[in-house]
Structure formats: C-alpha cells, structure tokens
C-alpha cells in the first residue's frame, strides 16, 4: 500500500539549499557499549524546522542516537553540534533540547499542570508567566479541563498529549520524540499523526522522531534516515526512499517489494536491459545505472506498479511482461493483494485497487494472468 506524505512540499528544501547551515550536525558519531557497536560512524545534517524521522527496527541504533542528542549517552567517537555549539561535555539539563519519552515519563506524584510547569520552574520563570504558558500549552493540546488530574487519571492518548505539552512548554528549538505514538491504538495514532504535524508547523520547532513504523515516518516527516545495525542505510524524502531505494534493505524495509535477480545485457545512457531467469522475461528500465554489462543485479518492483490482465497486453515487445497463475487473493476492501506464481516458481505480489465489486472481479483463483509494468517501475539495486 503506497502511503502519501501529508505535508505540502515547501518551496525550497533546506537540505538542497547550499546557503543554509544545518541546525543539528552529527559528525562521524560512534557509540559502543562494550563490544556491541550501537551506532557506527553516523553523519547527519538536520535543518531548522524539519520533521526528521530516524526509522529502523529494534537494535538499529536509532534510540541510542536520539539519547546522544539529548545528552543521556556520550558518543564514543565523533561530535554533535546543535546550533553550531559542540555538545561534548554539556549535560542534559543545559542542552537547548527537550525530549518526549516513549513511556511518556510523566511524574506520577504531580498533576497535569505541575508536570507541564516543571521545566519552567527549573528555569526560574515568574509564577504568573508559568501559569499563562502552561494554560496556553494545555489549550494547544486540548487538555485544559484536565489540568488538575494526576497522570493515572488519564487515558493513553491524554497522557501522550501531556508529555508533548511538557516537552514543548520550554519552547525548545529542537524536540526529540522517542516513538511518540508507539503506545496508542491504530485509530488514535492516525489522528495524532496529523496533530503532531500541525503543532510542529505552527510552532516551527525542529522535530527528530524515532520510529519503527514506516507508515508513520512516511506520513509525518520531511526527511527520513533509515537505520540498520547502527548504520544509516539511506537518507531522503519519503518519496525518494520509497521510489528510489538505494539498497535491498531499504526497498524491503519500506513497504513491500518484489525482487528479481538478473544480469545486465544492455547498458545505455537512457536505459538498461536486464535478463532475468527469476522473472522469466527481460526487464527494461528507462534510466542508466553505473554497472558494467554482465554484472548481476537485483531489480525491485513495487506491488502496486504491476498490472494484471487475462489478455496479453497490446503492443508488448516481451519486455517487462511475464505470466503466472493466481494462487492467493487477499481482499482488503479498497485494494486486493494477489500472490501470483510465475512459471519460474517465483511468487510475485501484486496490489490492485478494487475498481469493481468483489463478485464482479474478472480475475480469480487459479487464473492464468499476464503481469506487466512500465519502464520506470523497476529500480536497479546493486547492494
């Protein structure tokens, strides 16, 4: 299922603008716990006002990286700059960042109001101003009438918003969020995604979000860094990550994908041709790749970019066309997922929108079908 970003593209992306200086600069940072290397030589630049996602499975090092930004862990090697200042030796309570914890970490012995006011109190803000700012912040997260309650008197979604309010009330330039939606159920999560993006755009705060949920990262963030075993596998906008994955890991981690193995037989400046035993046909891709002829490569094709038909497609030259038998159909309402077994024995996943009602669907179990895709659909992966 393709997920569309919910934010409007801004005029000029700061990471493409050479005159911009990054707000957060992570330079060759490594973190080792004994023999285990949690974060391995990571470099990143994050710009003011970005909604940046660190995406990865458990043990990918994303949370460790976030904790180093907050100051709870010290890098074994490398440097972290926030707003141009080297963060080495600066304790968490003196950093210009705030963090929202995965467990929310609300102080159980304090009311909602006291929780939110805690950070301002530490800074010695005047009482009247504290009251005003806490009130405004609670209104922003729509919790004004819960101000006097204790955390255990709140539902999960309310607690999440208290945690958000508490981390935003000090007006940090940079907010770190550790799985901010992890503890919410699916419906609440979708609703909260939009709220988070709205609040971030309204306040103009730079957000760095750690998440394992690729859908969440795709919908909310301006850019994503996909992490695997402590290394950044790829950094880019959600569209770049989804449409142009640079490695098998990224292609398979984000959404689902069909991987075909093949050998480059034609390598031109405007296209490549790959002979694939796997797919049972030649794969034609309309962009050049920097691999020599004869090299073995993988080709990734997203399930929604493959079309199914019972008739052979018109005007076909035998490229990007193969045949198979429908083995499974999963009806999801809006789309159906077809598992098609090719003659070569490989199973291919195809998703198609349900344009007609289920009972009228032309393709059913054990039908022999043609699978086709356009020249731009495939992505060549060498790694």
């Amino acid at each position: 299922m393709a997920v569309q970003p919910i934010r409007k593209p801004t005029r000029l992306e700061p990471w493409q603008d050479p005159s911009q200086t990054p707000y957060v600069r992570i330079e060759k940072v490594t973190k080792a716990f004994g023999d285990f290397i949690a974060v391995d030589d990571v470099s990143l630049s994050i710009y003011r006002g970005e909604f940046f996602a660190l995406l990865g499975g458990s043990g990918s090092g994303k949370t460790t990286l976030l904790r180093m930004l907050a100051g709870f862990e010290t890098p074994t090697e490398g440097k972290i700059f926030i707003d141009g200042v080297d963060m080495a030796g600066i304790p968490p309570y003196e950093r210009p960042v705030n963090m929202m914890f995965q467990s929310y970490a609300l102080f159980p012995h304090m009311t909602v109001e006291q929780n939110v006011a805690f950070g301002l109190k530490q800074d010695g803000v005047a009482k009247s101003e504290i009251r005003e700012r806490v009130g405004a912040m609670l209104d922003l997260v729509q919790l004004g009438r819960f101000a006097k309650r204790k955390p255990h008197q709140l539902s999960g979604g309310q607690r999440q918003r208290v945690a958000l309010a508490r981390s935003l009330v000090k007006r940090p330039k940079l907010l770190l969020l550790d799985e901010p939606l992890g503890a919410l159920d699916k419906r609440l999560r979708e609703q909260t995604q939009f709220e988070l993006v709205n609040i971030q755009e309204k306040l103009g705060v730079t957000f760095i979000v750690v998440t394992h949920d690729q859908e969440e990262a795709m919908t909310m963030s301006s850019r994503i860094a996909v992490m695997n075993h402590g290394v950044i596998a790829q950094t880019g906008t959600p569209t770049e990550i989804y449409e142009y994955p640079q490695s098998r890991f990224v292609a398979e981690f984000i959404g689902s994908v069909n991987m075909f193995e093949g050998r480059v037989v034609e390598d031109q400046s405007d296209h490549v041709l790959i002979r694939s035993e796997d797919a049972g046909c030649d794969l034609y891709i309309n962009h050049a790749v920097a691999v020599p002829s004869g090299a073995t490569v993988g080709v990734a094709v997203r399930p929604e970019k493959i079309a199914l038909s019972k008739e052979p497609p018109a005007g076909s030259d035998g490229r990007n066309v193969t045949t198979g038998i429908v083995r499974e159909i999963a009806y999801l309402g809006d789309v159906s997922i077809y598992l098609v077994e090719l003659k070569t024995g490989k199973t291919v996943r195809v998703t198609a929108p349900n344009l007609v009602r289920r009972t009228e669907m032309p393709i059913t179990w054990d039908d022999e079908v043609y699978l086709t895709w356009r020249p731009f659909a495939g992505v060549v992966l060498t790694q």
Partner: protein
Amino acid sequence: MKRMGFLSWALWFGYAFLYVPIALLILYSFNESRLVTVWGGFSTKWYAELLHNDQLLSAAWLSLEVAAMSATVAVVLGTVAGLALARFGRFRGRTLFGGMITAPLVMPDVITGLSLLLLFVALEQLIGWPDGRGVTTITIAHTTFTMAYVAVIIQSRLVSLDESLEEAAMDLGARPAKVFFVITLPIIAPAIVSGWLLAFTLSLDDVVVASFVSGPGSTTLPMVIFSSVKFGISPQINALATLMVTVVSVGIFIASLIINRQERQKQRDEQMAVQGG
C-alpha cells in the same frame, strides 16, 4: 461444604499455630494468680502494677528510642546504598558489592554482636569514643544490621522505577541533586516508609546484638524480658506484651483501611479516565 477437606484443615491448623500462643499470652495477662500458668480468675491488676514498674517502663521507652533513632539513620544510609547499587551503572566488582550489602542479613546475630563489641572496645582504647557502652553503641549496632534490609528494599524499588522519569526531569532542566529530592524521593517514599518500619521492628526485637553492646543502665525491653524469664515471668510482662500487640494490631488495621480506600479511589480514577476518553 465442598471445601471442608484438607485445605480447610491446613488453614485452621496454620492459623492456630500462629495465633494460639499470642491468644494464650493475652488471656494470662488478665490472670488473677501470680503463677503464670495457673488460672486464678479474671483481673486487671497486672496492668495497674505495670504502670508503677519503672524498670520495665524505662526499658520500653529506651527500646522505642533506640529503635526510632537507628531506623532513621538506617533509612538514610540504606537509601544512599540502595541508590548507589541501583543507579551507579556497571562497574568492576558490582556483584561483589551487591552481595556484600546483603551479607548482614544472613550473618548470625551472635557474630554481628561480638564483632561490634570488639570494635567499640578497640575504638574506645584508640580514640576514647564511644565512651563506654550504652544507648549510643546499641543504636550504632542496630543501624549496622538494619541498614542492610533498608538498602535491599530501596534497591529493589529503584530497579522497578522507570529511569526515564529521572531522565525527563533532567531533560527539563533539573540538576541531579534536585531530581533526587523532587522526583525520585517522593516516588519511592512508600518504600522508605516500609524500610523504616522494618528497621524499627527489627531493632525493637533484637536481644542478641543488644546484649553484646549494651552497658550498665542501658537495658532494652527484650533484654529485661529475657533476663526476667530466668526468675519466672511476672504477669506484668504479659500485660505489657498485650498492650504492644494491641497497638500493633490497631496500627495495621488503620493502615490497611487507608490502603483499601486509596485502591478503590485509584480504580474509580482509572474508570473515569477510560470513560473520559
């Protein structure tokens, strides 16, 4: 009556085992006779006599004093030790230190008492303090062995405490000392209270260690009771024990009432939260 079988027998037998001795003690505190084991009719005269027994009363008072002081010191030291064990992170010999804090729990009282006595005598010869043995030495001795219990309680509470609470406070600008007093301490307060109560009870209870380190004029209640057994128990001691049992029972009853009410309140709160969406 399906349950009238082995289990109910076990229940009754178990409770009888626990409470018959205490019931007997309370019963004999109202005994008219001077002989502890011969029933001579109902009377409250031993309670009246108890009020005029200065030796027993001052011993009881001394015991309470020592228990309160040593429990307080033990809570401070035990909390610090528990904090170090739970929060210091990994260091060389951590397991050894962790094991060593619990050693006084299993150390026979006789050995603890004897070693402390040797220490006090040596100290007195070297630096002239403590000056003889008395309340100070008993308090120090009791602190020594009750502190280990407190440290274990505090450590296990801290291990189950979400560390991100402390990190969040630090992240919001509180320095480590402030985090401890404003966040950690209030949250672990119940564990500290139960640690204090345990230390208090252990101190009140102790006769072995106290016998080693006490001096003339500093006889605790358990020591008085223990020594008077040699000459035959006076029913006054029964009366005193009955009073203590009563005080403890009332205390436990009130505590459980309060806990019950808090529990019900919490359930109501949680229900409210769910309905409030």
